């Protein structure tokens, strides 16, 4: 009865396992990200070139002098990784661990942006999603916690999926409306080609007296009819603008979910802008299969735990049949 309310994004079958699996997906993504990111190299940049962004301004300068050294940044990286791994494995299944991980990630991402010129958006949606999942009972499954899930309403596990879905669509819509409000010049001019070329120059396209032709990008620059390129830019923006319709309409959701990976792969190829985190977050639009997969995984984990438990309860020494009272069954 209550779960009928969750029809919005077809998350009526969300369970503790679903939220647990979402936690694992998010924290796995962060783990890969942190492992691949040599944050300590920023220790080579002078501290005078750092300007703490937003909430990080509350930290005093003395702390930044310690944190922004090569060793300090290594500690931040390891600390963040520890929190994220604890959250991923569910070894310390407490909300404070997940919230601590989200806090550490805010610091980590803030350090990157403190050394950057503009505040870019990559990873921020994933950061928000992590914060939202951390605020909900994400350790009720796939963790060392004793089963408490039955004490909670099933709907509580659907809420993070819906909130992340809303957030996902709203951010795309924000980008769409800002682009449209900037006027037609953005779409009628050679902006897209210029962005592709600018990226290519920055990637070393010009080297001394040579200009290395931008391989795949040549198609966008020359082969594709420019009207098609411009029309695609407009169509992509309109689709972004109306992204929130995906929250209400199943058909539009299919269209949007198909559009996002294509859009981001093209952006990665043409502009070098990789938003793989957003492709990961599409799981919140997965409707039923994600929850089914989570339930199957939870059953598999339970079975493995039972096996492990049985294996560790079995004495090493074989039980002599004579030592077992008559009428009692011995499970081996």
């Amino acid at each position, binding site marked *: 009865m209550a779960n009928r309310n969750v029809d919005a994004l077809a998350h009526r079958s969300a369970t503790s396992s679903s939220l647990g699996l979402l936690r694992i997906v998010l924290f796995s993504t962060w783990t890969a990200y942190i492992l691949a990111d040599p944050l300590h190299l920023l220790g080579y940049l002078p501290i005078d070139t750092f300007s703490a962004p937003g909430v990080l301004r509350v930290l005093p300068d003395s702390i930044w002098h310690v944190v922004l050294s090569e060793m300090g940044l290594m500690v931040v990286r390891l600390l963040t990784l520890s929190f994220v791994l604890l959250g991923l494995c569910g070894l310390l299944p407490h909300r404070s661990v997940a919230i601590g991980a989200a806090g550490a990630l805010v610091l980590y991402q803030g350090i*990157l942006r403190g050394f950057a010129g503009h505040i870019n958006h*990559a990873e921020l949606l994933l950061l928000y999603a992590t914060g939202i999942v951390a605020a909900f009972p994400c350790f009720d499954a796939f963790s060392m916690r004793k089963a408490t899930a039955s004490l909670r309403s099933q*709907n509580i596990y659907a809420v993070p999926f819906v909130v992340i879905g809303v957030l996902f669509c*709203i951010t795309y819509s924000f980008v769409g409306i800002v682009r449209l409000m900037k006027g037609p010049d953005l779409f009628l001019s050679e902006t897209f080609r210029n962005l592709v070329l600018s990226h290519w120059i920055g990637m*070393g396209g010009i080297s001394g007296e040579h200009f290395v032709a931008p391989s795949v990008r040549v198609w966008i620059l020359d082969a594709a009819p420019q009207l098609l390129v411009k029309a695609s830019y407009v169509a992509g923006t309109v689709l972004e603008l109306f992204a929130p319709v995906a929250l209400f309409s199943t058909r539009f959701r299919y269209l949007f979910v198909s559009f996002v990976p294509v859009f981001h792969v093209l952006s990665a190829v043409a502009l070098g802008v990789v938003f793989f985190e957003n492709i990961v977050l599409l799981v919140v639009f997965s409707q039923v299969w994600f929850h089914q997969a989570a339930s199957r995984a939870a059953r598999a984990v339970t079975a493995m735990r039972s096996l492990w438990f049985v294996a560790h309860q079995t004495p090493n020494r074989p039980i002599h049949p004579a030592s077992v009272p008559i009428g009692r069954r011995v499970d081996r």
Partner: protein
Amino acid sequence: MAALASPNGIVAFAALVVCGCIILMARAGWWRPGLMLEGLWCLALVRCLSAYQPFRALFSQVPMPLRLGLVGFGVALLVGQFLGGGRHVYPFVRWAMYTDAEHQARAVILEATTVVGKPVQLRHDELFPPLRRGRFGSKLRYAYKSTVRDASRRDSTELDLLLRAAGQLYNRAHPSAPIVTVALVEYVVPTARYWDRALHTSRVLWRTAM
């Protein structure tokens, strides 16, 4: 309280937040007409979401502290969108990627000279992988603008520090052929004939000795 939780109450509350942000932006001289239309679009979204019955029913079952947290999160999201570029309101930012028209293909790159006079191009994304190309590139551009704007700081500029740091990191990886100067060079390429190297123009914006 019940009136505030109604769709109209939620929209009124969101309108207060958005208008507050737009007024602050106007005071800072960053106001433009498009911002009002952005605000209206945003309020229309808030109206649709807050009136959607399945969402309302779902959120009514969320415990009050969490519900307040989600409201706070929504307010922060609006403030981030309508209050500048995100430097002051991080982790909430203005979602506005690739929203400015570019009439020229241009980029700044770092060009260095080794001790034997060989030119070398320093790739931002290879020197500082966490910053990628765009973040470090924009840092260099901002530092250049600030240097040009404030001529009194030319003895020890942020730009000098950044170029030297990039050079030192390069020299650490290439001790046999260290670089002695690093220059920030801007390239402009004509869009229609981008392949014609003769039409490319370059300008050294800043040069620093190691």
